[in-house]
């Protein structure tokens, strides 16, 4: 997938190119057993609730996978999805164990290997559980039916008299009459494609789904045995350090490598825009890179940390309407009150603790690579394009990934590594330093949201004009039942001085902050309670139920909770899930420092496959969200990124993470919805509102820093 397509996909959910896979080749490689092939595009399996907030069509989702019951009775599940901490390696196995009636420990998840696994566009958008789970269950049910058929012949017994249990087919009347999956598949090679929606187990019969399960990869991770890309050490491998410009857009004026070249064993590459020093000792490679003297032409800065918002408003030159109902101009004219404000959000880094890395070697004319990527297949394509070799000459292998959050969709490091492996003829590792990570991250974009709301004296919202600059419309569809709504998205090609991209629930963190702040401002202008005001304007029963659940769990009575203390509410919709967050904070009025005291998060995510995993994901999202709400901001002057490490980029830490309570609207027979992204979108709005109710400071710009709070109080 091309970079601009990925970018588009994230912000607009536009068409995704469908790539066909060569099934015959895959199956040839897979060996014996019972193999179930499944693909969403070949069979319309309804996997979403009717009111899904996303507008993807089934045809756009090209999820494919294979399930193989091997001759030894173990089960391999092949998927192009990857595990980066979101826990799908566990939750997918759980679903498979449930439907196939096998123990969890007989399942082997093969993930993100471009030769073993079928094509997948990428692990993003909280799609894995939503779209993959129902398919996996269907495939398992199909396999179960096939096994039953085989057993019926072998045991000479009607199918109706048999049942599946713990990897065996057992007679319902005589427990001694049984045959294992392994015996049934031995010497067989049966390939089945899902043809019709099979019979799935009902929620009340679940043994594994819905039960808390500890991650299957936990032992590897606590013992240091989990292998990440930069942990791979190949014989004869060179560590590469690249000479980086001081700013994006800088041109190399001159380069003197003489001092670097005099270091024994150093390889210097200066080709095709790549300037690198390589050595089998990374410390020596780095020293050589530092000793290369480069002079650069730096383009004039057009914007900086302060001026970027004005710059965005002036340079965004394209717009489109993403939602329109009623007549917003007339609605505003008729409104008894109009409340207007602008909301700002600075650039945010993904800041995964694992930096981008790639390790590669040529085996003959074929490149074998491990890469910290959310898009193994996209990486394969990008690398093949960069080297101008056929796709099948690149093999990306399965590996643990140390956090992604959208930042590892883009894989410049893989291209650098592939080129250097070819140029040197040796195995090469490119593992970015933290400085490189900040420089080449595709930041969550700085954005401006201009909101104009009309409201009647009785508290009913009558008009809502929402102009989004640089954040995209994800999750912005009105759920306040406002009769007159217009939402427009403004963008421009040359707005940002560096690359921007998808950051955990793209765009939705910014727009939910703007909307939920503004809802509070409007309620406050009428002297109404922010929770009652929301209930008055929301009709959707699911959202009302989730809001009520949050209210009860928190024990909400009023937004002001004590001296310098207050709580804030934010509602959001993302990836099919409804989120309500109530956050309580204490603000020191002298210093402006915010101390989060408590967070209560209620969600309707349909069927919760792994409640424990869903809680872990929610806690993680909320904790990460405190960072963007309160601390995180990329400082820059033009293309020069001045924030280079964690000494100047504060993320949430232990001491600021309050008790977090997660509750779910229990709906086990509903399709599962997104879990990795949704919760985080509500943190900015809830914190901004809590700060206001605690101390009276309304801060319309994230991060909500002590300085901004003191300015708002002044």
């Amino acid at each position, binding site marked *: 997938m091309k970079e601009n397509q990925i970018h588009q996909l994230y912000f607009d959910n536009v068409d995704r190119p469908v790539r066909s896979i060569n099934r015959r080749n895959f199956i040839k490689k897979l060996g014996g057993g019972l193999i179930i092939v499944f693909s969403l595009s070949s069979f319309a399996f309804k996997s979403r609730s009717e009111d899904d907030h996303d507008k993807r069509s089934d045809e756009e989702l090209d999820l494919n996978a294979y399930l193989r019951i091997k001759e030894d009775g173990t089960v391999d599940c092949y998927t192009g999805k990857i595990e980066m901490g979101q826990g799908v390696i566990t939750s997918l196995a759980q679903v498979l164990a449930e439907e196939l009636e096998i123990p969890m420990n007989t399942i082997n998840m093969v993930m993100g290997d471009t030769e073993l696994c079928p094509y997948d566009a990428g692990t993003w958008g909280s799609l894995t559980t939503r779209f993959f789970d129902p398919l996996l269950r269907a495939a398992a049910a199909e396999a179960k039916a096939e096994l039953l058929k085989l057993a019926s012949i072998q045991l000479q017994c009607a199918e109706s008299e048999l049942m599946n249990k713990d990897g065996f087919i057992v007679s319902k009347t005589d427990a001694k009459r049984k045959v294992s999956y392994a015996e049934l598949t031995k010497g067989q090679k049966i390939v089945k494609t899902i043809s019709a929606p099979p019979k799935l187990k009902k929620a009340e019969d679940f043994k594994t789904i819905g039960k808390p399960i500890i991650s299957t990869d936990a032992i590897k991770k606590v013992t240091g045995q989990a292998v990440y890309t930069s942990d791979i050490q190949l014989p004869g491998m060179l560590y590469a350090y690249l000479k980086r410009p001081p700013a994006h857009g800088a041109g190399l004026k001159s380069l003197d490598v003489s001092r670097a070249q005099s270091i024994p064993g150093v390889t210097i590459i200066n080709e095709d825009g790549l300037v690198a020093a390589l050595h089998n000792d990374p410390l020596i490679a780095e020293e050589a890179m530092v000793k290369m003297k480069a002079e650069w032409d730096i383009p004039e800065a057009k914007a900086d940390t302060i001026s970027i918002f004005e710059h965005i408003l002036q340079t965004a030159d394209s717009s489109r309407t993403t939602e329109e109902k009623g007549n917003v101009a007339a609605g505003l004219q008729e409104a008894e009150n109009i409340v207007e404000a602008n909301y700002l959000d600075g650039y945010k880094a993904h800041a995964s*603790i694992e930096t981008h890395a790639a390790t590669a070697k040529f085996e003959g004319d074929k490149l074998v690579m491990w890469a910290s990527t959310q898009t193994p297949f996209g990486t394969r394509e990008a690398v093949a394009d960069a080297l101008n070799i056929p796709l099948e000459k690149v093999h990306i292998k399965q590996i643990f990934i140390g956090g992604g959050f959208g930042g590892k969709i883009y894989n410049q490091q893989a291209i650098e590594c592939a080129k250097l492996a070819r140029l040197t003829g040796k195995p090469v590792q490119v593992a970015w330093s933290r400085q490189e990570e900040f420089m080449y991250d595709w930041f969550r974009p700085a954005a401006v949201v201009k909101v104009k709301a009309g409201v009647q004296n009785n508290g009913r919202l009558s008009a809502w004009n929402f102009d989004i600059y640089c954040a995209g419309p994800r999750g912005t569809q009105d759920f306040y039942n406002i009769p007159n709504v217009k939402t427009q998205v403004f963008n421009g090609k040359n707005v940002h001085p560096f690359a921007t991209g998808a950051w955990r629930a793209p765009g939705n963190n910014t727009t939910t902050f703007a909307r939920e702040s503004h809802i509070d401002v409007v309620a406050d202008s009428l002297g109404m309670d922010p929770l009652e005001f929301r209930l008055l304007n929301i009709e959707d029963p699911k959202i009302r139920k989730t809001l009520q659940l949050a209210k009860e769990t928190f024990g909400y009575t009023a937004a002001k909770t004590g001296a310098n203390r207050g709580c804030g509410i934010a509602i959001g919709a993302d990836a099919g899930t409804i989120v309500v967050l109530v956050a309580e904070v204490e603000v020191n009025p002298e210093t402006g420092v915010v101390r989060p005291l408590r967070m209560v998060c209620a969600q309707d995510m349909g069927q919760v496959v792994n409640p424990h995993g869903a809680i872990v994901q929610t806690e993680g999202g909320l904790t*990460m969200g405190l960072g963007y709400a309160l601390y995180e901001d990329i400082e820059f002057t033009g293309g020069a990124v001045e924030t280079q*490490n964690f000494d100047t980029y504060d993320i949430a830490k*232990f001491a600021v993470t309050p008790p977090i309570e997660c509750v779910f609207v229990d709906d086990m027979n509903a399709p599962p919805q997104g879990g990795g992204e949704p919760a985080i979108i509500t943190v900015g709005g809830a914190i901004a509102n809590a700060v206001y109710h605690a101390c009276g400071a309304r801060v319309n710009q994230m991060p909500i820093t002590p300085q901004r709070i003191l300015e708002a109080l002044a």
Partner: protein
Amino acid sequence: MEQISFSLNNKTVKVEANPNDILLWVLRTKLGLTGTKYGCGIGFCGSCTILVDGEAMRSCGMAVSEVAGRQVTTIEGLAIGDKLHPVQESFVMHDAQQCGYCTPGMIMNAVGLLNNNPNPSREEIIEGMNENLCRCGSYRRITDAVESAAKQMNGGSNK
């Protein structure tokens, strides 16, 4: 280049290195122990935390010569055979890791903390762990894990 000798996970090792070489990279590349991770290189994230004579230290800011003759423990040296260290076991029980990349540093920092203060309050755990970063946001689970590991090591039960 010099030969530098120290105890690594209870075995004496001798390594050919420049005395100023950064310990993190010597451990990872010369000694092949890749459980200790690079995260920031300036001591701000804690992914590279190891124990030196039982005390948690950042290996990205240490020269290898600083550990000459001393006892170094990395994440690989914590379990005894298949028997996990109580802190490791507690991390598993509390699912205190997501992507797992910061986990070795978190565990080593926690073990160092408990070496100094075997019976810490929750506040002391938070304070002692505060400079280790986790982007997945597992702080609360890690705090719980360290708290119950401390209890277990003091003879209590690991819930």
